[in-house]
């Protein structure tokens, strides 16, 4: 009685995407000697850390049928503010927490606009995307904030715990937390329910608005944390951080099998999707392919993966 679910569509999809990741890694390992080294893999993981952190919350938001374009801008404001707070003499940890709180606030504004005022999510978050980055430009006056940051500022992004980078450990912890939230908690269950069928969710007594706002708040909070981490890795606060980053996250989430209509998807898929994008970019770098071509590859991979998924799905649906 319990065997058949293993061949359920979502499990099948995960199998396919993990297969694709392994295939890409295998190909790169054959093509480049430097690829399969601890230093290189660690480097890729550090570069994809921000995508994975923000992607955890974005996956849940997109599963619930909503969308957020302001992720990159939230990263920028959180990154610059974490640096500015430090220059004000606030210690590093509280400075990070305060900058994360700013992201929470932007998430709350997004949630308020989309859920309570019924502004379409693309429009509302496009608005905050521009406005929030604008604020970051105004605050910094267009300058990089690097003076007076001290060594402590780079701890979050560059330090090691034993052999492992702190940023990767934190990313792993956040991923584990969100894997748990998505599959084992009411917030996770309700986000699938709302994305799957909003009217049924309402009739089933789910507080659809509350769940929607909470998800936007989570996206804002995690994007801000990713921004603070990136500023720390770069050792500078700059309003230019995370331009176009929202699309990196969306690519990872969609590659991971999350439907734009909502109702299905998983943070595990997003993780694999982020790694696919990260490894492809890294591999092309190692092979000496110009970054202009990398964007072409990224685009082709995204559309190709979604098409592949469609074809395979149609085939197994006897």
């Amino acid at each position: 009685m319990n065997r058949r679910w293993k061949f359920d569509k979502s499990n099948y999809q995960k199998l396919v995407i993990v297969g694709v990741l392994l295939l890409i890694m295998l190909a790169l390992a054959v093509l480049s000697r430097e690829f399969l080294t601890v230093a290189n893999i660690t480097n890729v993981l550090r570069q994809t850390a921000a995508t994975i952190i923000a992607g955890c919350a974005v996956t849940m938001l997109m599963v619930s049928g909503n969308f957020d374009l302001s992720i990159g801008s939230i990263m920028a404001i959180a990154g610059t503010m974490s640096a500015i707070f430090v220059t004000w003499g606030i210690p590093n940890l509280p400075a990070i927490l305060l900058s994360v709180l700013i992201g929470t606030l932007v998430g709350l504004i997004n949630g308020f606009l989309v859920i309570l005022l019924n502004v379409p999510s693309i429009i509302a978050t496009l608005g905050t995307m521009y406005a929030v980055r604008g604020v970051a430009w105004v605050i910094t006056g267009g300058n990089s904030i690097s003076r007076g940051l001290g060594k402590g500022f780079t701890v979050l992004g560059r330090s090691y715990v034993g052999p492992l980078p702190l940023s990767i450990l934190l990313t792993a912890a956040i991923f584990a937390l969100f894997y748990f939230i998505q599959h084992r908690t009411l917030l996770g269950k309700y986000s699938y329910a709302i994305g799957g069928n909003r009217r049924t969710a309402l009739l089933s007594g789910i507080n659809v608005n509350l769940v929607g706002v909470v998800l936007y708040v989570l996206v804002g909070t995690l994007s801000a944390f990713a921004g603070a981490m990136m500023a720390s890795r770069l050792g500078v606060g700059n309003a230019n951080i995370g331009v176009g980053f929202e699309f990196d996250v969306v690519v990872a989430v969609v590659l991971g099998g999350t439907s734009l209509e909502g109702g299905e998807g998983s943070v595990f898929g997003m993780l694999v999707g982020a790694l696919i994008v990260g490894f492809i970019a890294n591999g092309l770098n190692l092979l000496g392919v110009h970054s202009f071509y990398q964007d072409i590859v990224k685009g082709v991979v995204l559309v190709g993966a979604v098409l592949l998924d469609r074809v395979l799905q149609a085939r197994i649906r006897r």
Partner: protein
Amino acid sequence: MMVGKVVHSRYAGGRTPSEALLEARELSTKSVHSLSFSVRKGEIFGFYGLRGAGKSEAARAVMGLDRLMGGQLFLDGKPVKIPNPGQALRLGIAMVPEERLTEGLFMKLSVSDNIAVANYRNSSRFTIVNEKNTSAVAGRFARDLNIKLHSVRQRAGTLSGGNQQKVVIAKCLNARAKLLLLDEPSRGIDVGAKEEIYAIIRTLAARGVGILVFSSEYEEIAALCDRVALMVDGKIAAILKNDELNIRDVHMLIMGKGDVE
């Protein structure tokens, strides 16, 4: 007029009346006007009328889906306010909606998630869901209601129409409904499954659940209901006991008085 193919099952007789479970006094929304009726524990109370007569809207008024413009609901004799379906569920009122696909089920979610969704209170702690519990509960309902499935982890969308309807009923029962609203409970369901759904409804009534059936099928109403409210233009034109039902008179009434085809 097209009435009465075959009456598959007959009305099995009334149950002993007990105290009123839900009473509506002069309930009005933008589409229904001054509805007054009451349903007792273990009673099957029907709403019959043409399409557009306001049956679904009467259900929506009780569930808190449409804003009340007047009137009052009483549950177990106490006045209650039901501003949304969540509150209705907390009070023990659940609905099997007319549109199974768009309002009743999560097609992409598992059967166990579908059954658990309206009541996680008993299968979660600190918002953490106990999957063993939800699977066990779903398994119990699958046996109870004879839902045919491979596994409770199966997607609800892969079940047949009749089995999907049973999942929606199971969801309502799992929410500890003491009053169950069924809007067109057998629409789009094959004949065999229809009989099963009727049997389930009768069993629930026998266990003391109050039941409101909203239907535009005369046979369904006649086979199930102890009393029937006939709806015309968003109003209750008459409330008849089952033994007072007469297909000719009923249809004359719901088509508008004296208007015989």
